[in-house]
C-alpha cells in the first residue's frame, strides 16, 4: 500500500516550451488552478495561489525551475510556516518531448511524511469543482488573448 505519492501523466499536443509556460507562469496558473496566482518562477521564490476574494490563500515556494523540463514547488504548509520538506506537499511537473508534443508527468508527494492532514488541506483548496461547462467557454476567449500579448 503506497498512499504517499500521487502520480499522473497526460499527453499534450504542444511543445514542452509552451507546456512549461502554462504550468509555471501565474497568468496561466490562474486559468487552470486558482482564481489568482502570484508565482515568480525562480528557485526559492515565495508565491501564493488565491481563491475568491482571498477567501482561501495557499502559500507556495518554488523548488526547481529547469525550462522546459521541470517545474516544482511546495505548498499546503501549516499557516505561518514556510513550506519545507516534512510539512508540505511537493508538486513536480516533468516534461518530455513525445510524438511531436509533450508527455507531462505530475507527482504530488509528501502525504505520508506530513501526516494525512496535507490531503485534507489539498481538499480544502479544491477548484470550486469547476467543470468543463464553465471552463471551455472561458478557454475559447482566453487562448487568443494570450497569444495577442506576445
Amino acid at each position, binding site marked *: *500500500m503506497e*498512499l504517499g505519492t*500521487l502520480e*499522473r501523466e*497526460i*499527453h*499534450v*499536443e*504542444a*511543445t514542452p516550451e*509552451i*507546456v512549461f*509556460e*502554462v*504550468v509555471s507562469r501565474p497568468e*496561466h496558473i490562474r*486559468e*487552470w*488552478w486558482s482564481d489568482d496566482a502570484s508565482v515568480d518562477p525562480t528557485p526559492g521564490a515565495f508565491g501564493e495561489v488565491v481563491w475568491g476574494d482571498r477567501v482561501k490563500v495557499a502559500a507556495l515556494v518554488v523548488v526547481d525551475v529547469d525550462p522546459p523540463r521541470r517545474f516544482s514547488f511546495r505548498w499546503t504548509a501549516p499557516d505561518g510556516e514556510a513550506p519545507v520538506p516534512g510539512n508540505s506537499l511537493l508538486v513536480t511537473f516533468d516534461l518530455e518531448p513525445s510524438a511531436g508534443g*509533450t508527455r*507531462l508527468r*505530475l507527482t*504530488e508527494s509528501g*502525504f*505520508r511524511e506530513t*501526516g*494525512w*492532514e496535507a*490531503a*485534507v488541506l*489539498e*481538499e480544502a483548496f*479544491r*477548484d470550486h469543482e*469547476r467543470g468543463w461547462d464553465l*471552463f*471551455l467557454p472561458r*478557454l*475559447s476567449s*482566453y*487562448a*487568443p488573448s*494570450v*497569444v495577442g500579448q506576445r
Partner: protein
Amino acid sequence: MTTLAIDDDLWSAVGDPIRRQVLDLLLADGVGTSTTLSTRLPVTRQAVAKHLAVLDGVGLVRSTTAGREKQYRVDEAQFARAVAQLNAVGHRWDARLHRIKRLAEAIQRERD
C-alpha cells in the same frame, strides 16, 4: 455537517505515524493484538492499545474478544473511505491537468 466532523476524526486518526504503521501491519497480517503488534513497533503494548482504541473509535478497525486480548482487524469499508478521500485529491489533479492540456494546446494552435 456530521459527515465533515466524522472525516476530521478519520483523518486525524490516520495522521499519526504509529497508527498508520498499525494499519499497515493489520492490512498485511489480517489480524493482530496489542501484544503481537507491539513486538513489531517501537512502542509499548500499552501505547499500541491506546492507538488501537483511537482507530476503533473512528471505525477503522474492529475488535473481537478471543481469550484475554482483543483481536483487531481493519474495517475494509471505513478504510476504503479514507483511501477514497486521498483519491479525491487525485481526481482534482486530473481536472487541473486536463485544463493545462487544453490551455497549452490552444496556445500551440494559435502559434502554428
